[in-house]
């Protein structure tokens, strides 16, 4: 008897749940670096994503969005593995992926093998992803690493009067792209980049790298992120380093500025450039910061969203708004949706974003300086806002193509 009634209840609950899924769902796969060197970046990216869902809701017409998250570790193969799992096992129809530069190039190439699906870049910023042989179903609503450095070279040369700098960066595509943007502008203004050091992603002991930094430069540019950046700063302080610093977009970011310990204090006064500035007064930005702060308790978030949170917010926003435009219509290999994505212009927290012919963002860039708010928290303060930055950084496309693709030694330090 008991057995029977339990069976009945189980059966009826099955029917009930069957009724619940009668409402159609759209499955979206999300990847973030929730392991390895960039763990903190991935976590904050997911917070940005969650904030967007809080603000926009998960409904598209009468359909409900379902998000499935997979973890990567910033290596290209981990990203492809995660994306493949999301497509093959979870049967997602849209992807919000990936976070990091090398992952982006790999996922873009993978996207070509699934032309029927739609890939929306979450936060990765290597130039090659959308510049070389772009995939028609891959859309990127954040700028690339070089675009995020626009304004920094000129500011360093003209306002800070730096003439010679050296760079230290992680050895992969996103940082190549960042150094590319910096070197083009700084050398174009007349500066010299005397030395470029590259360290493997995930380096822990920077002591020898620090010892090998040249003495005869005005500033040292740091293109590091996540655990690498924190380790570098910690050891830089222990070695008694005193040079002027300049920072890349994930170096001068809340992921580093709010790390525990006091090594980050070496960054006060550092100039940097990025797709956002923590203290920007724009109402749209302030609203986003508020939404982010309200969504999580203070010990589970940064004082202010990081670049990754902003990027995930922007790409989630594009994903949902375009989907609403076509009323959730994913028929005919998602043709209508892709068209809507290519055309949509979003009012992201960090300025208006639209896509170019390669489906790459044209957006706003910020030159910043790190300040202490008086209570020990560090923020990036706006120095300059540069709207409408495109992927060729304002160069004529033919000239830009001649510079070559970002790498350890490209571009040369000269005026193009």
């Amino acid at each position: 008897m008991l057995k029977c009634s339990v069976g009945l209840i189980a059966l009826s609950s099955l029917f009930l749940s069957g009724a619940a899924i009668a409402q159609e769902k759209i499955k979206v796969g999300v990847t973030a670096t929730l392991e390895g060197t960039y763990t903190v970046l991935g976590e904050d990216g997911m917070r940005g994503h969650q904030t967007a869902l809080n603000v926009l809701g998960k409904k598209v017409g009468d359909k409900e969005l379902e998000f499935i998250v997979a973890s990567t570790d910033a290596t290209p193969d981990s990203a492809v593995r995660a994306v493949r799992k999301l497509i093959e096992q979870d049967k997602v129809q849209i992807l919000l992926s990936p976070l990091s530069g090398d992952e982006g190039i790999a996922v873009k190439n993978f996207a070509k093998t699934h032309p029927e699906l739609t890939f929306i870049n979450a936060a990765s910023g290597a130039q090659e992803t959308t510049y070389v042989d772009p995939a028609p179903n891959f859309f990127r609503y954040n700028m690339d690493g070089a675009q995020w450095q626009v304004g920094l070279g000129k500011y360093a040369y003209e306002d800070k009067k730096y003439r010679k700098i050296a760079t230290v960066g992680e050895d992969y595509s996103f940082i190549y792209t960042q150094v590319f943007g910096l070197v083009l502008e700084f050398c174009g203004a007349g500066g010299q980049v005397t030395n470029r050091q590259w360290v493997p992603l995930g380096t822990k002991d920077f002591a020898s790298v620090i010892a090998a930094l040249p003495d005869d430069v005005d500033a040292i540019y740091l293109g590091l992120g996540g655990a690498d950046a924190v380790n570098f700063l910690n050891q830089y302080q222990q070695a008694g380093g005193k040079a002027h610093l300049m920072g890349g977009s994930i170096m001068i970011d809340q992921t580093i500025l709010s790390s525990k310990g006091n090594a980050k204090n070496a960054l006060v006064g550092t100039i940097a450039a990025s797709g956002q500035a923590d203290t920007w007064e724009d109402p749209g930005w302030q609203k986003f910061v508020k939404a982010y702060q309200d969504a999580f308790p203070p010990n589970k978030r940064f004082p202010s969203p990081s670049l990754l949170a902003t990027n995930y917010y922007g790409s989630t926003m594009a994903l949902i708004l375009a989907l609403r435009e076509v009323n959730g219509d994913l028929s005919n290999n998602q043709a209508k949706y892709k068209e809507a994505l290519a055309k949509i212009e979003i009012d992201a927290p960090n300025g208006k974003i639209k896509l170019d012919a390669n489906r790459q963002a044209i957006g706003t860039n910020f030159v910043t300086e790190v300040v202490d708010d008086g209570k020990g928290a560090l923020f990036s303060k706006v120095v300059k806002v540069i709207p409408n930055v495109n992927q060729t950084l304002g160069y004529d496309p033919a000239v830009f193509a001649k510079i070559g693709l970002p790498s350890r030694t490209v571009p040369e330090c000269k005026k193009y």
Partner: protein
Amino acid sequence: MTRFVERHPAWALIVIIAIALALWLTLAVWPPGLEEAIGRKRVFLNAVFNGITLGGLYFLVASGFTLIFGLMRNVNLAHGSLYLFGGYVGYAISASTGSWLLSFIVAFILTALVGVLLQLIVFRRMEGQDLRQTMVTIGLSIVFADLMLWACGGDFYQIQTPNWLIGPIELPLITAVKSSGEPVYLRYPLVRLVIFAASVVIGLAMWLALNRTRIGMIIRAGVDDRDILAATGVRIQLVFVLVFALGAGLAGIAGVVGGTFQSLSPGEDIRFLLASLVVVIVGGMGSIPGAALGALIIGLAEQLGSVYIPTYAIVVTFLIMVLVLAVRPQGLLARR
């Protein structure tokens, strides 16, 4: 020593020349030709010192690992988790009390306790089943990693260096001579020197304890033949627990050290597990002097590699491991 010279005169000569060369590279002011060829002396000296101090940290982790393996034949793949756990405990203590030294003591005690629990609850039940123990430790390391991620999040933690240790000191080693004839001395982070000195002290203490005390004698006997030792009436289970506690505690201390001059975050456990595996494979499984030598070699290879061949730096340590496995598979200083 004299016997070694008599038996291998050629090798002895090579060793003496190498030592002399190393001394000259460290002490002499480099001629301009050499500086042009391989860079400034300051960079070289820093890399060497960094390699040695990093080796000190690797030794702390690997010595516990090798001790446990030597006695119990247990490849404890959860050793990295103990390292990270010790680091987090150290951070919590130093953040709440402000005392760096206290964090070492507490980290040692707590990780040693975890080690004791592991031995009593898990490994004792599967004694002598090497493969099963190894698989269980892999599983445990995954569980621990997720528990720590849950408790501490993915943030980077740095243990605050005490004020008296911050900043560099000048060492009496001349790196260059200014045009005015004034010598430039090497400046080096004090904290790394202190940590290195501490690991040397710990290493020596372990060596003394193993070779000069009664308990050390029992442990050495256990390494050679557990069964006979147990048959002589020694309570071998107690010895196992003690050794496991010591090995785990050392990993905990290493965690505090690593959290002070690097940082703590998820993933560090795997990195240090891998490092200590490489170190003991190079040095010889189960041998403490082997762990010291292996740690030194790997530390130096990593640091010199990162300066002189940055692109291939990652490969160098594994190349060394492959070489050792090919030429002397039991490890450089293994006894058998």
